[in-house]
């Protein structure tokens, strides 16, 4: 039975339970609604919830678990001797799955009968021909163990799907009956339904948290795997980044220091650009600008935040780089070899961060109580003195928080670096040299056809983990500072 039908049946049972529970409780109360603990709709919802939710949960878990279990069983049908030297059990199992899918397709197109497909004595050559006639994609010849495993796979999934259908429908019916049994006028259906709603909210929150956890775990496992292949000390303290790509052979130097230096340097340039401009813009907008100017200027400034970073990257590559070349390049001061440099990426990244800094700082400056400004004006201070000596110090922790958040944005930025800073991992002090960052190297290590089990690819996860720890630390620190600031006024 197709999955959609099963789903609809469960929904129908839930809807039926809803109507029945409602009718039943109203009948029991003799149509006197005041005699009910909750509104009739709650009794209905309770019954629908109890029949639908457990059944759908079991369905979801089953759908995830069944392929895993069946794979394990089918894999037992392939002896180790059937796995060739050059391949692995995983690849053979992929072949088994493809064969099973192919048989399904062949049956669907009428090339093959169900009994023929189940026949353990079937002629494999004839079968392969029929499968390719049906349009199935088979990479290598089907071997008897693969065929037998595919047959087993199909049989097991048929049984599993049948069992799943029966169990899910039974759970839905049982839930409906249970809910109907407890549906009496004094049953606190409202409270139960609200508990259910709370459960839904908790589930939503946990999905977000579990996803984070999942990301971290996948990073951690791959990072551990990387450190098994490559010494951690050389990764963290190595000053040379020279991965050798698969096929070319030779050992790789995978030191993170040049990448961290590039990240740090570019972020520093970006912050040097973004912090003063953003902060001064925020001060102007929140303290000096008339409401009219503010109403126009603030949204315009925030448009900058809506530009995709790849567009900033193009701006760096096509406009800022050549512009800097004209001044600092060979025709000018001669400090710059090419348009891609720390300066190019840093400047453009700084422009990207301006709205980030200004918008956060603006909110923070506006949050400084008017009473403090009045107090300062009342003592005969000018507006500028008030801003410098009262408003900014009061807002400083929040502004520092905003800057740290901007810094973690800068550290995580990729596209501008890829297009603006070049790809050379280099330890240099010259801001007109091309350098690269951790994020840009993660991209280059994982794109292309590198082997995912090699240290050259796995290093991406170690890089990602390092970056994650750094930005997490910055964010935690920023939030800590912002929170400490909030306490002062509440």
């Amino acid at each position, binding site marked *: 039975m197709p999955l959609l039908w099963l789903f609809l049946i469960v929904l129908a049972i839930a809807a039926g339970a809803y109507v029945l529970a409602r009718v039943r409780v109203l009948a029991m109360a003799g149509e006197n609604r005041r005699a009910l603990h909750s509104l009739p709709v709650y009794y209905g919802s309770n019954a629908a919830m109890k029949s639908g939710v457990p059944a759908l949960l079991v369905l979801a878990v089953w759908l995830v678990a069944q392929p895993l279990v069946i794979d394990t069983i089918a894999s037992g049908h392939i002896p180790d001797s059937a796995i060739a030297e050059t391949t692995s059990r995983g690849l053979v199992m992929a072949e088994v799955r493809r064969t099973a899918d192919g048989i399904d397709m062949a049956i669907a197109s009428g090339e093959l009968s169900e009994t023929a497909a189940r026949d353990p004595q079937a002629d494999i050559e004839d079968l392969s021909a029929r499968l390719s006639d049906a349009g199935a994609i088979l990479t290598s010849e089907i071997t008897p163990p693969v065929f037998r495993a595919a047959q087993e796979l199909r049989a097991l999934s048929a049984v599993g799907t049948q069992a799943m259908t029966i169990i899910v429908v039974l759970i839905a019916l049982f839930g409906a009956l249970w809910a109907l049994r407890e549906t009496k006028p004094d049953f606190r259906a409202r409270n139960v339904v609200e508990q259910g709603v709370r459960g839904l909210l908790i589930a939503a929150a946990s999905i977000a948290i579990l996803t984070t956890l999942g990301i971290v775990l996948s990073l951690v496992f791959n990072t551990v795997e990387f450190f098994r292949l490559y010494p951690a000390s050389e990764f963290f303290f190595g000053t040379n980044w020279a991965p050798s790509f698969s096929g070319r052979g030779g050992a790789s130097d995978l030191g993170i220091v040049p990448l961290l230096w590039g990240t740090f340097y570019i972020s520093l340039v970006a912050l040097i650009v973004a912090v003063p401009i953003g902060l001064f813009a925020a001060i102007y907008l929140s303290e000096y600008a008339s409401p009219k100017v503010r109403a126009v200027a603030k949204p315009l400034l925030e448009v900058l935040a809506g530009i995709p970073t790849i567009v900033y990257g193009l701006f760096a590559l096509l406009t800022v780089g050549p512009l800097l070349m004209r001044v600092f390049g060979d025709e000018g001061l001669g400090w710059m070899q090419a348009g891609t440099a720390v300066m190019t990426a840093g400047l453009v990244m700084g422009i990207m961060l301006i709205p980030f800094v200004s918008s956060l700082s603006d909110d923070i400056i506006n949050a400084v109580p008017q009473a403090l400004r*009045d107090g300062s004006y009342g003592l005969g201070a000018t507006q500028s003195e008030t801003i410098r000596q009262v408003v900014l110090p009061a807002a400083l922790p929040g502004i520092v928080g905003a800057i740290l958040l901007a810094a973690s944005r800068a550290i995580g930025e990729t596209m501008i670096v890829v297009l603006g800073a070049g790809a050379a991992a280099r330890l240099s002090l010259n801001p007109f040299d091309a350098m690269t960052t951790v994020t840009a190297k993660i991209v280059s290590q994982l794109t292309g056809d590198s082997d995912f089990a090699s240290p050259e690819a796995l290093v991406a996860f170690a890089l990602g983990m390092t970056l994650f720890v750094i930005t997490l630390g910055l964010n935690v620190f920023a939030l800590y500072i912002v929170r400490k600031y909030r306490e002062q006024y509440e």
Partner: protein
Amino acid sequence: MYDAPHYTRQETGVTDVKIKAQDVQVYYGDNHAIKDVTVDIQDKTVTAFIGPSGCGKSTFLRCLNRMNDTIDICRVEGDIRIDGDDIYDKRVDPVQLRAKVGMVFQKPNPFPKSIYDNIAYGPRIHGMARNKAEMDDIVERALRRGAIWDEVKDRLQAPGTGLSGGQQQRLCIARAVATEPEVLLMDEPCSALDPIATAQVEELIDELRQNYAVVIVTHSMQQAARVSQKTAFFHLGNLVEYDDTSKIFTNPEDSRTESYITGRIG
């Protein structure tokens, strides 16, 4: 006019007029908030402004040091003179004026700085001290005048926001006093304080009378009766009655004043 204020020359004490306001009108946009207020505020006297909420007493107070300038839609007309000088004259810098006319606000608003820096803020801006020793002196004098020196002398570097509400308000008074103003405006200085802190601040106000003209806006008629020598009653933007406090509270001339102080309107 029917609600023209009643004047009586003060029979006792000093008679110097510090602030002379004539036909003051204040508009918030189209709203006529203060109508034809004419009042003479005496030096070395505590003058109380009383009246129901929204009657314009705070608005009028804020005219006296041009704090209303910071509100865009606010417009002030009429003539206000301090020591005979028109404070709304184009040549007057409102910033300089505010150094001369100090202000204490309804809610204590210490800056998020140390107690010392809170007091030193005004004197530093106006360059009143040539060196650290002079500044220490100014700070100590102001804190003593604010009647809070003994409580904070051991923790001058502690943040001013860490003090209790009553201490914060006295710190704000000391801060206003530190710039050596001639007039001290207080906008409901005790409304956020408990009775004990209120008593301390009232005592302080009485002492400040020795040196300054003090104008206090209050919602508490008992407070007005306790601390002030002159009382002005505002109602719906008009100055209804202005007289000696004892007269206002015992024998008011206007029926509205009587209704208010006996609790029938407000």
